[in-house]
């Protein structure tokens, strides 16, 4: 039985999966981000950027490594760890 844990992720048979293609990303109740495809883009390079944006800040984009669907994003300085969201299922 599938159980939603975000708009883009579900848990099925004790495994966190991409909601789009059901690709497995890791065990439920644990962090899944390290199993995702991570691409970063400097915020200063995004459309609509300001004149004074911190050059080091990036948008981390975590995508499903199978279908490329975007699962989550976070704004971060390079030295900061991933934000961890863990849903108990």
């Amino acid at each position, binding site marked *: 039985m599938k159980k*939603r*844990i*975000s*708009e*883009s992720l579900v848990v099925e048979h004790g495994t966190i999966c991409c909601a789009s293609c059901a690709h497995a990303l890791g065990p439920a109740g644990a962090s899944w*981000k*390290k*199993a*995702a*495809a*991570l*691409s*970063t883009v400097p*915020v200063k390079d*995004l*459309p*609509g*950027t*300001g*004149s*004074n*944006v*911190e050059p080091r*800040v990036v*948008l981390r*984009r*975590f*995508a499903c*490594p199978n*279908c*490329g*669907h*975007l*699962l*989550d*994003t*976070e*704004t*971060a*300085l390079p030295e*900061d760890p991933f*934000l*961890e*969201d*863990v*849903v*108990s*299922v």
Partner: protein
Amino acid sequence: MCWSISNTWPAGNDRDWTMDPITFSIIRHRLFRVIEEAVITLKHVSGSAVTNEGHDLMVSLYQADGSLLMGGVGFLHHLTSAAEACKAIIRKFAGQIADGDMFLLNDPYTAALHTSDIYVVAPIHHGGRLVAWSACFVHVTDIGAMNPGGFAPEAQDIFTEGFSSPGIKLIDRGELRQDLWDTILNMVRSPEMVALDLRSMIACNNVARERMLALINKYGTDVVDDACRTLISQSEARLRERLRELPDGRWQSRQYLEVKGEIYKVLLTMTKQADTLAFDFTGSSPQSKYSVNCSKWASLGGLFAPLFPLLCYDIVWNEGAIRPITMIAPDGSIVNCTRPAPVSVATVGAIQSVNNAACSTIGKMLAASEKYADEATAVWHANHFAIFMFGNNQRGRLAIGILTETFAGAGGARTFGDGLDIGGEIPNPISRMANVETIEAQFPIRYLFRRRLIDSGGAGKFRGGAGGELAIVAHDAPDGGIHYVLSGKGPRFPQSDGLCGGYPGAVNDYVWVHAPHQAHNTDRFAQGLREIPGDDEPISWGVFPLMGDDALYVRWNGGGGIGDPLDRAPEKVKADLAAGVISRQAAGEIYGVLETAGSVDEKATAAKRKQLRRARLAAGSPQ
């Protein structure tokens, strides 16, 4: 998101119901109306745009012990802080609280958010017994801080942030204490406007007190007391029930602030377990030497500001809704600073970061629920800019006031739709901006333009609402212009976080355009930053002139988006392009939508989206 009252009879509560439900409902609605009428009174008496237009205000009712009885609208950070103000007054004036008294409190280390948000609290007595409190605040025109308007980016400690009281009796048994009144007004700029601010709160409390007494006279003390206790137990039961329906888990959010090259973090870990919710700010930065800090009461208010509308949209906002919530805020951190750290910019600094972080984690929790996913939201307008203008106006009088566009906001995206363009903000359900003409009538300035800002709403399947941009120049100024205090702590980091793959809203920006020497050649009708002649200087923190033909350009952030932008319906992207809300660059590079001859090219769009997804895969895993 709507602020409404459920007509559902309390569930999950095991007390014996002795009151008939109709009487209970009448009293509950009447309490709301008491607040509504008090807010109207406050606005009628106040003469400032920040109160009347921006709705930087709050009115609520409290129980005899100071705990929240009925939270009102306005800035919701104040609901819990004003409770602390009532409790501080109860402690400080034990045995000296009489019918007809009113007390003033604005010390941030006692209860207030910053010195310029003054609380005036009034005990309500019936038959000689203290039965309730009315409390309200407005951001007064000035508080005597080193910078006009109350926000003091140049302050180094609380002592330079103006008059600060942990509690004084302003009205004694119905009589204004003239000596205190004169003393307060002697410490502030624009005393006539501050007097109006204070009188608006006195009038507001008078109306609240009269209406509460009319309610008690009609139904009797015991019945009203019983209804109030029931309301509180009902709110607690209903919020706990809602929390039990939501998944257990732990969610994180991180907000960055920057002041003069120093970067600060607010890190939040929110843990939901059974029917409790804990907010832990461990890992946040140490307190700053700049005035972006906030006290622990301010942080508590800051996290409740999004919690009330997002989790209690159909639950009365009172003490019962507070009981399931706990907070950890490390001493000496930017979210629980130690006196005498400066805090005058707190409301747009650390408090707003607490707001944003709580909005983000609550949004994630809601998005994890089948039942409540439609209540989830990305972060709304996350960055106030607090520009206070001051100087002699076209009538030769000192004018001090805020650019109310900071209250215009931008909606975060929802799981079922886009955020509202210039759509307000989560912590204040009634915030708005003044008309251009209102500001131009008050200050010697002219707007060159004010409109939605392109590419400001965070991209997503559902995009964040657009923010805005404006430019002003001096106009008809007897001194050649005016000055302004800018407390813009966030032009370097996006703060309106996206959700579930959505992008954040764009950043704020402040640009001082230095006019060329040939002032007569200046384009007085420029319609964009690039059209304003002169040299651009990004600014964010301090006091600046707006003189001669110089211009001030300001843009404010959009809301965060939700979901993968490549899932956005191409026709919606096309509509955004046509409306000027997104650029062609964003349509192609972020949304992967391409047009041919004014129509969506479906084949090219599909190929572009495939290419963008492949590029994500090529980036690889961080493992």
